[in-house]
């Protein structure tokens, strides 16, 4: 019997005590963003946001 496929769930936590949004993709990538528009732009960039930076690229 195979396990149920993992749901592709995005999660955004508004961190208490400030204005920062902590975004987590279902792939495990994570980033803090200043507002919900940039949050969704980042999350929906999957899978590119999860890829390692190119050789010689910005970290």
């Amino acid at each position, binding site marked *: 019997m195979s396990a149920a496929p993992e749901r*592709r769930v*995005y*999660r*955004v*936590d*508004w961190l208490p005590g400030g204005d920062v949004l902590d975004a987590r993709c279902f792939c495990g990538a994570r980033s803090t963003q200043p*507002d*919900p*528009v940039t949050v*969704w732009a980042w999350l929906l960039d999957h899978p590119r946001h999860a890829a390692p930076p190119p050789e010689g690229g910005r970290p």
Partner: protein
Amino acid sequence: MTQFARNQWYVAAYTTEVGDDLLGRTILGEPVVLYRSREDGRAIALADRCVHRRFPLSESRREGDSIMCGYHGFTYDRAGACVSVPGQTRVPRTARVASYPVVEQDSLVWIWVGDPAAADASRVPRAPHLVDPAMTTVRGMEPIDADYGLLVDNLLDLSHETYLHGGYIGTPEVAATPITTEVDEEAGVVRVSRHMADAECPPFYARSTGIEGRISRLQDIEYFAPCLYLLHSRITPVGRSAPVFRTEITYAITPSAPGKVYDFWAVSRDFAVGDEEVTAFLRDFNHTVVMQDVDALNLLQRALDTEPGPYQELSINIDTGALAARRILAALAAAGTGRADA
């Protein structure tokens, strides 16, 4: 304007609204007549326009499970086939009105006005608390002259309770408390949670539960796009683990036509279930709250309609869930373009 997602289930009525009388509703721009079969008790939904001269069948009369048009007598059976026309024996082959798939579940009448071949009754979202014998429910429906997306926006961002519903259900803590948002795009579900550990108790809960002091207040939204919205509310006297007062607030958001939406609302509680005074209070009080939203959205739509040109919105943290809902609605609308054929 928020595009309609046609290939989806929508609430057309409460089960109790569909009976012997003919009920006219407009769902996603489609005029529909609803009634209940005298033969087997099932709800029936047909296109609400006679094929002859477009007279509303909902303003006509029943002949058993058939409807006879009140203008010239064209008669349609429960499947929408015309079985009789006046003065001649031959019924034109094209004389038929659309019959829509219907599911009755959890005291709601769900309708499908999209491609009939795509209607899957197992995909109707559930609201079992509406028929839970351990809970008491008050309910109503208000038409709003606003884009249905404005109602989705309203319900996904409850920070407006503090300002629009202050003194009713809003307190300062609602707008001040950070939210958590989860989005399952594949399932079309948005979840928004706001957990207030120590909050003022608004009159809605103070008068229905009898709590006099401050409360722990949990708001957990589940939005099953496009139609069903559930707000799971849990109230506890602050610093205590019991009693927990559970309230389930249900909305069905059914687009009627461009710029028009049906706002079905219900409040179910697991406390004071047999207390008629609490029931009457919650019915009246919540109706007042709903009408505050209705007035605000009517006003907002009129303001948007008179915008002189393109405008830019500004979204902040409180809008995280509503922005996700907009994306899902756009995706559902793009996926479902089928129409029911007569």
